[in-house]
Each structure stands twice: as structure tokens, then as C-alpha cells.
């Protein structure tokens, strides 16, 4: 596969002097779905804005489909669709006009059949003559997507498309993304939800403090992220883990008042049922149970402290 977006050592310093991107190099392959993860203020939106032409790179180069985004901006931008993070829409216009406007702006001839198809796909067809201000938040977000799709982009940027969106719409969104991928569209999305990256991405990039900390195949990354902990509080303290439980990945905590069990959520069996059975055979009485997942924040902290990953 060839890279459709090539980002070479891109730096972005905002007017105030703040360095939001500190040298990002990344190749995005044609047809892949890349999820960008990173805490608030990491530089995800800045990176996307710089690729799409909303802000200019302070240094470095970006090419889309081989076209430089500054010197050959027309060719580059006509391949790119953007769904921004903020819901920015003309409040008094209807859905139909707004979407049609986007297609024209990108220089494409009128195609009402296509726009109808897109609106139906996004369940917006019965709202087509409604003014934007009379739509719900989730519908507005879908209008943004319809606008971006209206000009048939080959590369689509989705900046937090599922923030503040209900579960059902999130599933719909994933389906749409899968459908676009099947049509050969390259998709870059940012998200704060690991499950989302897990559900749809081929590759995952982690960005923090304006630096790309890693880009990795999803499956490899998910193994690292998928660790979960089960904390078992015991009625009576124990001094050591009983030999009968040595087969489990257990750790004693709280001065023997609880056991920590680590397991992989994506393994065929988590081993929890077996552990519970073994514990009751040992006569250990449970007071409480609690599970916790490696949070995205934990992973960021881990990444920042791992010198080889940060390099």
C-alpha cells in the first residue's frame, strides 16, 4: 500500500509562541483507518487543521496524494474531507442547502442523488428541510459528516466524531466508517475512547505534547492496553498467597487484606470463574470485588516514561 498522506517533520508554533506540534512525521496508508489518541491539548486538532489548510505548518511538509498542501493546495484539498471537532454550522440554513453548499465549494457538479443517498445513510433525510438550529446535537454532528462526504473525499478526517453522541449513533458511526473503508476511503479519526479505536482502527497513533509517541498496529497495542485488574477484598487477612492459587497471576495487597488479579479482557477465558472456585475451596471469604482497566491516561503516563517509545 502507498502512503496517501505524508507528513514530514511538521512543526506548528502558534502566534503566541506556543509550540503545539514539535516535529511530527507520519505516513498514512491509502485505505487504512488510523485512530489518533491523546489527552486534551495534545495537538490532535492542530495536526488535522494543519493538514487540511486551516492553519499553516511553521516548518516541514505535508503531501496528500502526492500534492503539497501549500504549493499545490487545490489538488491536495480536493481529496480531503474534514469533520471538525466543534459543531460549526450556519444555524438558519436547512440541512439540504448546507450539504449542497459543501459539494459546490469543493468544485463538484450538482448531484442531488448522491446527497440524498448520504442523508438517508445518516438518517437525516426526513430532516432535510429543517433549519440546523432546530436539530439535536447528535443530528448536527451528522450534518457535519454529510457535508464532508458530499464532495466524495478520498481521505476523511473525523475529529472526535463520537464525543457527546449516544451509544446507538456511535454504532451507526462505526458502521459508516466501515462502509467508507470498504469504498476505499482513508480515514483518520481522533478519539478519547479506547474501545472506539479498538472497534474500528487498523492502526493507532498516540500523540502527547505535540509529539507522536507511537504509531502501532492496533492488535499489538491493544494487548498492551487490554490489561484489566480484579481486586478482591478479603474478609480475613492472609499472610501469603495459598499454594493452591499459585497458578493465577495474583498479588497480595493492603497488608494481605486483598488480592489483585491481572487478566486480559480479550483472552478466550479470563480465568475469573476458576479463580473464584479455587478461592472458595481454600475457604477464603470475599468482602468485595472491584475491577479496573488500564486507562488511557495510565497508558500515556507509561508511554511518556518509556524512553524507547518516546524516542
Amino acid at each position, binding site marked *: 500500500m502507498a502512503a496517501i498522506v505524508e507528513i514530514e517533520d511538521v512543526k506548528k508554533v*502558534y*502566534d503566541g509562541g506556543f509550540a503545539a506540534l514539535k516535529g511530527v512525521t507520519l505516513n498514512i496508508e491509502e485505505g487504512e483507518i488510523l485512530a489518533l489518541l491523546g489527552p486534551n491539548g495534545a495537538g490532535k486538532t492542530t495536526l488535522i487543521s494543519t493538514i*487540511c*489548510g*486551516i*492553519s*499553516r505548518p511553521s516548518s516541514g511538509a505535508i503531501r496528500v496524494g502526492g500534492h503539497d498542501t501549500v504549493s499545490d*493546495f*487545490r*489538488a*491536495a*484539498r*480536493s481529496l*480531503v474531507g*474534514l469533520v*471538525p471537532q*466543534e459543531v*460549526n*454550522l*450556519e*444555524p*438558519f*440554513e436547512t440541512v439540504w*442547502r448546507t450539504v*449542497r*453548499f*459543501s*459539494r*459546490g*465549494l*469543493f*468544485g*463538484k*457538479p450538482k448531484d442531488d442523488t448522491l446527497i440524498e443517498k448520504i442523508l438517508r445513510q445518516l438518517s437525516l433525510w426526513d430532516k432535510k428541510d429543517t433549519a440546523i438550529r432546530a436539530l439535536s446535537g447528535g443530528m448536527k454532528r451528522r450534518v457535519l459528516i454529510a*457535508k464532508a462526504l458530499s464532495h466524495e473525499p478520498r481521505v476523511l478526517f473525523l475529529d472526535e466524531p463520537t464525543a457527546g453522541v449516544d451509544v446507538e449513533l456511535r454504532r451507526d458511526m462505526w458502521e459508516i466508517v466501515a462502509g467508507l473503508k470498504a469504498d476505499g476511503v482513508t480515514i483518520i479519526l481522533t478519539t478519547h475512547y479506547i474501545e472506539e479505536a479498538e472497534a474500528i482502527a487498523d492502526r493507532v497513533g498516540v500523540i502527547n505534547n505535540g509529539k507522536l509517541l507511537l504509531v502501532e498496529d492496533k492488535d499489538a497495542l491493544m494487548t498492551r492496553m487490554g490489561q484489566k485488574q480484579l481486586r478482591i477484598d478479603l474478609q480475613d487477612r492472609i499472610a501469603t498467597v495459598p499454594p493452591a492459587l499459585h497458578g493465577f497471576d495474583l498479588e497480595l495487597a493492603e497488608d494481605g487484606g486483598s488480592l489483585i488479579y491481572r487478566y486480559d479482557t480479550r483472552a478466550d477465558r479470563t480465568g475469573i470463574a476458576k479463580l473464584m472456585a479455587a478461592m472458595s475451596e481454600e475457604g477464603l471469604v470475599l468482602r468485595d470485588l472491584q475491577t479496573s482497566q488500564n486507562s488511557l491516561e495510565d497508558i500515556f503516563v507509561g508511554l511518556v516514561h518509556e524512553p524507547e517509545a518516546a524516542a
Partner: protein
Amino acid sequence: MNWQAVKAIYIFEMARFFRTLMQSFISPVISTSLYFVVFGAAIGSRIEEVEGVSYGAFIVPGLIMLSVITQAISNASFGIYFPKFIGTIYELLSAPINFLEIVMGYVGAAATKAMFIGLVILGTAALFVDLSIQHPIAMLAFMVLTCLSLSLFGFIIGIWAGNFEQLQLVPLLIVTPLVFLGGSFYSISMLPEGWQTVALFNPVVYLISGFRWAFFGMADVPIGLSLLAIAVFTGLCLGAIWWIFKSGWKIRN
């Protein structure tokens, strides 16, 4: 050239205008009528004629210019300020279009609206006074040029403005006084000599004078000079807009 984009912007902007067509129509009709009542009737009864033209007819070109200039500026400045304000400008910035196409769409729509208002006022005025237009084609051409050049100017204000107050500031503090002092309601030759010289530094004088020439065949300044003034003004505005988009000033960080 991305003509589809120019068309899309133009149509989208005109839709806003059509949504409020009644307002756009009624307010110039009412204000023009008021001007005729106040200036035509009250002052006109004391000043019978100016340079051989009845005072009522004499003020028509100035009245039209007054509205056309304010409308062109406010339409164009609002047209580009609004997307900046609500954030939809992201789409213009990420679209495969250059500054000329953006300008043609927005300025074209703003100029069309101003032109419409100008014609409505002309029609209203014809109800109050006898109007014979000596150079009708030149009159229309002059009106189109004024709409376009002032819309360009308004476009710059819209990009510059950081809030709604600033959007009003330039029209209110600079343009309105210049228009009123530009001979809308009197001939420059009616001013004391010193003030006549001062008036020549007011660009609006050239617009109104040229426009009045198209109506009555008489002008405060030669018609060629009026055309030159518009051309220079338009050139300056275009240059400024070209620079704005090249540098990204106020729009692209």
C-alpha cells in the same frame, strides 16, 4: 478557476437575503420616503433649484448613493464576519479555493443586494419627483461599480472586525460622515471656497458627483476623475484582500 465554488457561495449568500426579502424591501422604501418628506418638502421649499434641477430631483443620486454605500459595506462585512463568528469559516479555509473565488462569491452577493436596494430607492424616488435620466447606461454602470468597490471595502472590514461593535465602527464613524459630507444633499459648489478644497479629499464626493452626472449631465468634478477614483479605490481594496489571504491575517493561524 473553481466556478462551482463561486456559484455555491453566491447562491448560499443570496439565500440569506431572500429569507428576509420583505425587510430588505420595506426599509429602503420607508427611509427614502422619509428623506423626501424631510429634505424634499422642508428644505426644498426654501431651495427651489440647484444648478437648474429641482431640489427634490437633485438629492435622488445622493440618496441612492447613501444607501448603496452603507448597504454594500454592511452586507459584505457581515457576510464574511458571520462565518468567522460562528466558525463555519473552517470550510472555506479547507476547500480547494483561492482568495479570488472567495471574494467573487461573497462580494458578488453583497453587491447584488446593494444594487437591489439602489433600484428600489430609485423606483420609490420616481414616485415623488419627476426624474429624467440623461445617461441611463452610465447610471447603472456607475451603480454597479460603486456596489462592487464598496463591497470589497466591506469585505475587508468583515475580516478585520473582532466583534460586532467593530463591525459597526467603521461604517458609523467613517463612512456615514463621509457620505453626508460628500454632497449627497447639496452641490460642493454651494460650500465656502476653503471647504470645497477639503471636500476634494473625500472619496465619496467623486462617487456622488459621477453618479449625479449620469442623471443630470452636471458634476462637481470631471467624470473621468470620478472613474479614476473608483478604479484606484477598487485596486487598493483588491490589493489589501490579496495580502490578507496571502498572509492569513485574522483568518488562518
